[in-house]
């Protein structure tokens, strides 16, 4: 379970170490909201094989809409956003217009790359079989 929290966190914030308090809260949320849901096997498989969870989530979301994997990420995002260590990730405090505009093409390329990668992982690992939906 701790591994799942670290794995989801790393997919979102690869340069930050997940605080123990976030792991504890994620575990509590998992026990309350995700217990034995249809995506549990998929997430366990992704974490075990260190696959790109962000790419798989994106491919699944574009195909089926928000899903059990999306909700795990949303829980992690919310748990992080309420902590000062993550303030810079969520709140624009300084002028950064040039960076925002110059980053737009990169963002589009990254989206295409992640979609392709997610679809590839879904197919090669036959991830659909892990979803009891």
């Amino acid at each position, binding site marked *: 379970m701790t591994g799942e929290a670290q794995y989801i966190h790393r997919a*979102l914030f690869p340069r930050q170490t997940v605080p123990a308090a976030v792991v504890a809260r994620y575990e509590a949320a998992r026990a309350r909201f995700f217990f034995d849901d249809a995506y549990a096997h998929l997430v366990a498989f992704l974490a075990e094989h260190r696959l790109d969870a962000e790419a798989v989530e994106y491919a699944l979301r574009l195909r089926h809409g928000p899903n059990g994997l999306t909700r795990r990420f949303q829980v992690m995002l919310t748990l992080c956003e309420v902590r000062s260590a993550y303030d810079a990730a969520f709140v*624009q405090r300084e002028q950064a217009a040039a960076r925002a505009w110059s980053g737009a093409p990169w*963002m589009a390329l990254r989206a295409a790359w992640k979609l392709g990668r997610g679809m590839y992982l879904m197919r090669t690992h036959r991830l659909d079989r892990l979803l009891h939906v």
Partner: protein
Amino acid sequence: MFDACVVGSGPGGVFAAYGLRGRRVLMLDAGLQPPAQPALDGNLYDMRRSAADLDRELIGDDLRGLEHIFTPPASMKLKSPGTAYILDGAERLTPVVSDSFRAVISLAQGGLANAWGAGVYRFTDSDLRGFPVTAAELAPFYDEVGRHMGISGSGDDDLRADFGAEPQLQAPVRLSRNVARIHAKYQARRARFQAAGVRLGHARLAVLTAPHNGRAAYGYRNLEFFQAHDPAIYSPAFTLREMIAAHEITYEPGWIVTRYEETENGVRIHALALDGRRSQVFEARKLLLAAGAINSARIALASSHDFATRLPLSDNPIAVFPLIDLRAIGSPLGVHDAAVAQLNVIVEEAGRTLQGSIYGSTGALRSDLIANFPLPLRSGVAFARACAPALTLLMLFYPEAPRDTNYLQLRPDGALGAAYQWTPDTALERRLCGLWRQLGVVCLPQLIQHPAPGGGIHYAGTLPMAEWPGRYMTYPDGRLHGTRHVYSCDGAVFPSLPAKNLTYTLMALALRTATRLRGELQ
């Protein structure tokens, strides 16, 4: 026996009780209170930087602030641990069953007005078409309610004729940078907008910008999404507490009124305790129903054991237009901007009037939005950070009139069945997108959101008033047809629903009904 029993502590109930002060008044109410939790004191964004975490305050020990990820909330204001209590118990105790209508009902002290937008607009005679009451008749009651609450806004902009003159108007809420640009663009192109039937001005709000009646001015703290009862934003709970403290009413929380029966001299009111284990009968000479348009209708139908009649139901449908100012992308977020409405918009089109409010994008957590972007989530975080400072939201409300497709019906199990149909006017919305672009913002019709029916949370018209009412209708003085002692004092009495927020008018109507009754009860 009490002189009068008021059911419910929302805006209608509180101003009914306020008008009856001096008589023996009982208020029966579910009366749920905000939970005990760590207080947020200061600006949200300052605290987010200075405090190690706001986990308990924004999410809660019981993870309440995560529930919306699994069950979409009725409003983003009703999902945090400090505000979710507003809807507690309603699904269990006052159920509404429907595939086409999402009823949002509050059993909290102060009702849904604990999380309202605080828009206060006088109805004009045009708005009151079909009502057996004129704007001039309502004026003194608007004056009294407005004086009591405190209202901010502009008295001399283009919306003066639409919203009516307030005798004591505080300065409007400060505009954020983006909204000020929109306002300036409108001023520069005013004639063109007016020719298109569009007017824009400062928001008219029950939000204090200067201290009033012992309440502090708005502090631009961005906490509206996380806690109820900011002293600057009027809640009927404030007035209720004043009346309780002054022993002007007898307040009985913990009760759900289920039905009434008339006697020779008054009314017997049957109530069920919130735990469902006890029931009690209260007696009063007059009964004033102010449980909200849906629950007042439930009480009226249950009192007649009527499972056949369909009562009309109206709600203001909404279109939400995201407006993006490209020049503000990547600029610092205005962390001390207002989270309440800053501007109002009137749109006149094909003989009907729509009304909107323009909001900034501060307050809400970005995590709530990130999965909606067509981007991988890490990119979504960066996108939200860069684009939030450029985003304003226009919530446009449509007027609504009774239609056969939209109704409530009591079921033998005590639940209300509901049905509702509404289709957005996409041609109008596309045309408006073109107009909004002239305000210097990007507005794409594809991004317009339409909350499902019920999402307006402006419920009305279930016991409509008329000069010559029929069954389940009310007389111009608020008395329910077929009764001698039962009055309706909430949105139920509206025969139609203009696009303007109905709350100020239902407060004025409730005060008018109670003031007349007060004389009778001498």
